[in-house]
């Protein structure tokens, strides 16, 4: 059964062994049925694959019956072993986060009522554009962001995490995946955890904000039914019938740059829409934290800019202006030249897996704090950060003597 399931997904045995932290030969024995998979590992693998642990031992169920829908979504021709490995890693990480939050009593399932409210109030007979915009309005109102005094891109990550959504931003080189979203079942069956991922490789902070909100729309509307949503950097032409993507685009745009935010920011920055300058565009991009193209699109749709103005502004070179206004516009080398003291922090967030996953800074800090407070053991801290115990000690210091 396990062998068939892995072939159906498909995930290589080497990938599974690596994520579980066992020798390939040991995993091979489990797949070949020469040894029973220990319960602890069966739970972990079942979580990665999205099946019940018992399903890994059953022989009478076909792989077609058992393969969860997320893996069907990952059979796109643009998805290879590398991407499936990344999704498997993300799913493993989601389960570890779930364990950590169960251990520390910090689990949140608020997302469910909030997402339900949005889904319930949206009129699904309306156009996808209206659906997305309406959903954004509802979510902004639900989270107390209705006023629109400023951009919310950075702050909303905190909102998502408070809702119980796992947000991971990590590099996945040589991959066309720009973002994805899916749900995992908690190991104790208490509930689902929504997860969004944005590929940071070759991406900017401004682009990534859009990707995260786009994926959030998929979480609300699509990922639960479809198993997962995957978005690629090389976008194939979207047909007019592509309701799902149009709705997610509209949602992301109206979460990040609704007309009310543009008007407030223009006023705050003394922007004259009639004489729209590169400085004005740089100010709006810096304050909304989205790409210039999206700012211009939103401004034109809100009739703050004419079609001609939008076309002209599309040619503005704002790179230097933007770097002067916000550190978010700096490349990683530029940023660390300015803040050399922070360079070591990045390495502390990397898992020992291949490819490494860059874990959220807040999560890493919380795990280390829980170890220091004795809520979890250092060995568990290492497991939760997907690193070896010795690496944990080297990065964060050894616990008090283990006599």
């Amino acid at each position: 059964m396990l062998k068939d399931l892995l072939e159906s997904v498909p995930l290589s045995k080497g990938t599974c062994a690596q994520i579980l932290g066992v020798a390939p030969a040991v995993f091979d024995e489990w797949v070949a049925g020469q040894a029973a998979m220990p319960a602890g590992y069966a739970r972990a693998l079942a979580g990665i694959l999205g099946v019940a642990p018992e399903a890994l031992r059953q022989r009478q169920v076909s792989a077609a019956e058992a393969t969860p829908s997320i893996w069907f979504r990952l059979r796109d021709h643009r998805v290879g072993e590398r991407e499936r490995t990344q999704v498997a890693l993300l799913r493993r990480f989601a389960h570890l986060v779930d364990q950590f939050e169960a251990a520390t009593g910090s689990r949140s399932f608020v997302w469910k009522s909030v997402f339900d409210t949005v889904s319930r109030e949206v009129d699904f007979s309306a156009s996808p554009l209206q659906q997305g915009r309406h959903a954004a309005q509802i979510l902004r109102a639900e989270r107390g962001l209705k006023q629109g005094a400023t951009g919310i891109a950075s702050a909303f990550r905190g909102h998502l995490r408070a809702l119980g959504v796992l947000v991971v931003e990590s590099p996945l080189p040589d991959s066309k995946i720009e973002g994805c979203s899916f749900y995992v079942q908690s190991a104790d069956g208490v509930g689902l955890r929504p997860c969004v991922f944005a590929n940071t490789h070759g991406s900017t902070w401004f682009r990534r904000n859009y990707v995260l909100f786009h994926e959030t729309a998929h979480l609300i509307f699509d990922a639960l039914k479809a198993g997962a949503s995957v978005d690629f950097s090389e976008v194939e032409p979207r047909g007019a019938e592509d309701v799902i993507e149009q709705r997610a685009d509209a949602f992301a745009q109206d979460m990040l740059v609704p007309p009310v935010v543009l008007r407030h920011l223009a006023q705050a920055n003394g922007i004259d829409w009639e004489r729209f300058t590169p400085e004005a565009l740089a100010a709006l991009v810096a304050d909304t934290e989205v790409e210039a193209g999206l700012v211009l699109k939103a401004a034109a749709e809100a009739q703050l800019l004419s079609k001609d103005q939008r076309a002209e502004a599309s040619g503005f070179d704002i790179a230097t202006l933007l770097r002067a206004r916000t550190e978010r516009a700096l490349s990683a080398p530029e940023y660390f030249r300015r803040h050399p003291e922070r360079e070591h922090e990045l390495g502390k967030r990397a898992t020992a897996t291949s490819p490494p996953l860059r874990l959220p800074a807040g999560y890493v800090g919380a795990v280390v704090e829980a170890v220091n407070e004795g809520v979890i053991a250092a060995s568990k801290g290492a497991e939760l950060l997907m690193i070896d115990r010795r690496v944990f000690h080297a990065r964060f210091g050894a616990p008090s003597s283990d006599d």
Partner: protein
Amino acid sequence: MSGGSANPPAVLFDTDALIQLYVARFVTPLKCFRERFAMQPAVTPEVDAEVRSHFRHQGVAERYKKAEAARAIQVLDVHALRAWKPSLGDRFAETSPDALLDQILDRASQYHLHVDLGEAYTYAAAVELGLPAVSNDANAIRALRNNAMSVPVPMLRCFDVIALCVQAGFATVGDADDARRALREAEEHLPSAFRNAKFDDGIASFAARITDASVPALPGTAPDALRLFPT
């Protein structure tokens, strides 16, 4: 930790403690437990996988596999539980081995929120079955205690079983010190008593937690040490 007249049927090893025996090339404790005290050294399937996957110290996984094949160490399963059950005590009389295994897995999933996989299953099995466990990770024990979870009694350290071998005449003081030196050279954890002292010098301040009741105790043996009786 007072011992009764009957020894526990088994002793459970956690990954780190077992690996230390192989790194030190000192697996005498496995023999000592079996031959002198009729106690089966055992590991949970999770620890079995961890030791088989160990790569930091060359040859450990291979030597472990040979010991397992020779039954010097046994993996905890329904068959093992069935064999141990008559010696586990009256409270297990009405419980089937399958039910016992389920109880261990339930407890382990709770422990696993706070300690790593091998520790969780080892401690859960030891607590459920009332068996001693061998684990060097005092930090993990503290984490469980902080969360009001039961811990194995007694919790032995790798050097407790090394010391037992010396006391029971299965090894010399020189053998024990060779093991200590090998662990230090491999940059393995050493208890503070032996960090800068030879075995003979450090034993008095180590407070051994297990003792052979039939021979004079080693200096500094803990008053509540588990007393084993030769069979």
